[in-house]
């Protein structure tokens, strides 16, 4: 495997905290939840695998116990009549999936039908139709977390104009860490409050 530090985009002299931060940032970017139903999901999965391997290698090299806690792919429920269609969609066989789905009579078109239709639209890149279909699925079956999450992912993007789960680019760009003026002031005020609670007085005028 290639240089694990390069995979995580950090220097070999990075501190343990910097390694963890880099891992968390990348894991958030390529997490399977962000690529649910995405035709490029397998590529994201490979990237995730590389990132996990790199992190584990660095941890082993530094002899710190790893605490990887990110889940693997979700397991789809395959216990209904739409199981075949789901499988076709995950294999990216969209025209076949769509034909089968459209063949289902209107009186049987439930939440799952709309969710699968939404998935087909999403894979094709028809995002508006996908959002409408996912919303319909969720309204027909409000207890289904899969439909709800699909709607909330798209709603996030509709409101924020950035990928689901990605932090604001400007904040990360300007993230210089360390202690700012506000941090020092706040720290002192907190320390003063705690001191006063215990009977003392750190800063007389506060």
């Amino acid at each position: 495997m290639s240089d694990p530090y390069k995979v995580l985009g950090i220097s070999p002299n990075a501190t343990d905290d910097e390694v963890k931060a880099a891992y968390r940032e990348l894991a958030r970017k390529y997490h399977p939840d962000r690529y649910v139903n995405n035709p490029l999901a397998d590529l994201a999965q490979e990237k995730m695998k590389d990132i996990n391997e790199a992190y584990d290698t660095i941890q082993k090299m530094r002899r710190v116990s790893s605490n990887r806690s990110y889940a693997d792919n979700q397991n789809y429920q395959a216990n209904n009549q739409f199981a075949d269609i789901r499988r076709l969609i995950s294999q990216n066989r969209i025209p076949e999936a769509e034909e089968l789905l459209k063949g289902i009579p209107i009186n049987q078109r439930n939440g799952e039908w709309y969710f699968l239709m939404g998935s087909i639209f999403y894979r094709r890149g028809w995002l508006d139709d996908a959002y409408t279909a996912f919303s319909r699925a969720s309204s027909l079956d409000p207890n289904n977390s899969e439909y709800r999450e699909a709607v909330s992912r798209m709603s996030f993007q509709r409101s924020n104009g950035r990928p689901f789960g990605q932090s604001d680019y400007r904040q990360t760009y300007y993230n210089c860490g360390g202690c700012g003026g506000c941090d020092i002031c706040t720290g002192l005020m907190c320390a003063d409050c705690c001191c006063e609670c215990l009977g003392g007085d750190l800063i007389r005028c506060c």
Partner: protein
Amino acid sequence: MLGYIRPCKPELRIREYEIYKSVYCGQCRQLGKVFGPFARLTLSYDFAFLSLLQMGLNDTQADIKQSRCEVNPFLKKSICQSCDEIDYTCTVAMLMIYHKLQDNFQDNGIKDKLLSAAAYPFILPAYEKAGKRFPEIELIIASMMCKQKELEQAKCSSVDQACEPTAKAMEEIAAGLSSDAVQQRILRRFGYLLGRWVYQIDALDDLTDDVKKGNYNPFAVKYELTDADEHKIAQVKEQAKASLYMTIGEIGTAYELLDIKRYKPILDNIIHLGLKDSVDRLYSSCSKKI
């Protein structure tokens, strides 16, 4: 200047901005050199972005030299010298521009018809030259533009379907940015979504004019906008904004999978900040047509 895919200038480092500008100027020079001086008028931020993206994927360093601007000889500029990447995007730009010209000639008013007719004898030889270089791409773009026409004449009410031809054309152009099969897969999805976004933002920018002139506009048809009522237009624009934002989100998700070896900060700026800025600019109180 043309194009919606632009950087957010205030957030670029000066060094990055200089590189971006040099590629933009390099594009202008290449257009003039290969396709004639008239072709310079088709210079677009969108294709400058594609050049930079291709250079980023191929790890090509911009060969920047100082020389005089050919349009304004009093200015000395840093210009990126010709390379495969700029050559590709300039050639493909000619294919797109030719069809846009035909579109303008058929749809718009007298002024646009005259301008298009005047430009035609200059653009046609450029188009034919470009078509010989990339015949497969030319074929796909031509067929997509035909489909676009059909959808518009049928007054398609689905924004997704109305975007599809432009999206498919951009998908094909983006796939040509790399020879690596995995990168091409990602570029196809990325290009599709980017083409979709370009069509949407163009439709949004033209919304008020289209409603006034009775031209086809997918947002106007979808939301049944028949008169240029300011309040109604504002409501439709809010809905359209959510759709554009959603597309930007998906573009970002696909973009992050690309293996970009150079100029990533500039490209990140364009994708993560620039696209949203272009949308937001349409909503500011002093907005003009971009």
